[in-house]
């Protein structure tokens, strides 16, 4: 009975089977398993010549909850928050038992960490800015994402666009977070409550950034806060964002907008420093020049280790990075 729900992790549909909804009669041809988590299993399927992703769960209530959230997202005009919802139904399996499912837009892409490994670390900040924009819209609509983690982020490419999946944790602001994952949860680290507040998501986002450099994660140890800060300091690739990450971990940002601004500034600074280091003859835009002034001021009071870090950044890799960034900017315009 109810205990079955705990065993439901293993929904296994043979490739090539046809799933037909009991209520709406849409048929889907199962193509491959995309993944599974605590609440269900997701398959890639064909509906006619359209590719869709279908999430199955024996726990009908979690399907209903997620569908509710996706429906709400669709009412937020002009914004693409989460994959779009295509169908909700039940499937009576050949053995007679019934499972609930919903079909959604298939997001063809890579998981965030895989994408960054393949395409380079300079993408992290850029993608986080996208995520912060979406989170800002979500928060404005009165929701908190909740279960924000690397596995729930997919990058479609090209052009690079970060999208989130799995809205199972999405909670109305002010309520108790519905679903979370310890590593990304501020409560676990002793750095805040499990109330749904924008700061809850920003903490998780900071952990996403950290996780990219610690794919195996790490345990909280005796002094969770210290453990966290030590790992943050030790990840040299995170240095440019360390201040922003730290602020997010301590709940200092009042909105995602503020964090977005900080990370954007950092991105602009880094690229300009690199340009200067290369004494590049490229023409700078007016805004970039303004940014450069800021950078100079900043660098005057930066510590020697920071300066060293910046010089380390010079070299061929930098040129490549630069072209990437220029490429991205061009993509955006």
């Amino acid at each position: 009975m109810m205990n079955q729900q705990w065993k439901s992790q293993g929904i296994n549909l043979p490739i090539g089977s046809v799933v037909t909804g009991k209520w709406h009669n849409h048929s889907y041809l199962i193509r491959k398993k995309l993944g599974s988590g605590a609440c269900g299993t997701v398959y890639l399927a064909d509906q006619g010549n359209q590719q869709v992703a279908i999430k199955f769960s024996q726990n009908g209530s979690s399907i209903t909850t997620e569908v509710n959230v996706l429906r709400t997202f669709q009412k937020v005009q002009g914004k693409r928050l989460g994959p779009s919802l295509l169908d909700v139904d039940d499937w009576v399996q050949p053995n007679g038992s019934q499972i609930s499912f919903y079909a959604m837009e298939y997001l063809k892409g890579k998981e965030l960490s895989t994408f960054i490994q393949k395409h380079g670390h300079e993408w992290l900040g850029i993608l986080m800015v996208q995520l912060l924009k979406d989170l800002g819209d979500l928060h404005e609509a009165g929701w908190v994402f909740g279960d924000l983690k690397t596995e729930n982020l997919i990058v479609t490419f090209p052009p690079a666009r970060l999208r989130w999946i799995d809205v199972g944790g999405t909670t109305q602001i002010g309520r108790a977070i519905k679903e979370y994952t310890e590593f990304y949860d501020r409560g676990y680290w002793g750095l805040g409550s499990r109330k749904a507040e924008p700061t809850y998501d920003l903490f998780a986002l900071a952990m996403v950034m950290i996780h990219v450099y610690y794919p195996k994660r790490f345990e909280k140890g005796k002094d969770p806060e210290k453990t966290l800060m030590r790992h943050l300091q030790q990840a040299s690739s995170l240095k440019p964002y360390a201040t922003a990450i730290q602020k997010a971990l301590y709940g200092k940002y009042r909105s995602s907008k503020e964090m977005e601004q900080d990370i954007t500034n950092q991105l602009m600074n880094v690229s300009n420093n690199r340009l200067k280091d290369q004494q590049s003859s490229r023409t700078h835009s007016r805004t970039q020049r303004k940014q450069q002034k800021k950078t100079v001021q900043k660098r005057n009071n930066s510590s020697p280790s920071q300066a060293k870090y910046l010089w380390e950044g010079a070299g061929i890799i930098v040129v490549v990075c630069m072209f990437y960034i220029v490429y991205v900017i061009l993509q955006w315009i």
Partner: protein
Amino acid sequence: MNKGTLKQILLITDGCSNKGEDPAAVATLALQQGITVNVIGVLENEQSEQPEGLEEVEEIAMSGGGYSQVVYAKSLSQTVQMVTRQAMTQTLQGVVNQELQQILGQDQKIEELPPEKRGEVMEVVEDLGETCDLEVLVLVDTSASMHNKLPTVQDALFDLSLSLNARTGNNRFSIYSFPGKRGKDVSKVMDWTPQLESISSVFPKLTSGGITPTGPALREAMNQFAPKKRNLRSFLSRDESTMEESGD
């Protein structure tokens, strides 16, 4: 304005009972009294196979209308909160189902509604889950084999109160351990309290013994709740205002 109180027993154990009445029988009785029994079986971190005694875990939970889960000590925290939450949703869904039957006639369950209609019902369930009051009695097995797992249990309970206290509704927790002191089946570790922050001071004092009187301990635990006064449907009558006192 009170929406009624959900009552749960959370049993944390690592093996089978060896004294007194059948815990599954007591769990059945508890459910009849409106108390859900959830059970978490704790494995040693290195343990690879599931020991036989843990079959009982599932039996008790099924009898008590709750959830069971067998986990390694290190993933206890998240499991404790998941089990508690799932059981809450389950119970509330049952309550809403009863209400639906009242309105729509026999056999109308959430799962039998068309998917479009389920959304609204689920919203009601979620609202209730957020706002209802909750009483959780945690019953911890402190027999010798559990000894080195107790610090993890303590962490998990602290974590549970963190999760539940993020809700709008009120919570009350209490902790009992078995076997009890001086040959008794069960001892009170902590009386009903809204916060579990103070548990760190009580846990080290727990002594462990050889026998595991799960059934009798469960019966004692059940008696710590006030007797059933009204049926579960009163969750939905918003203007009922009786706050249930626990019998100590």
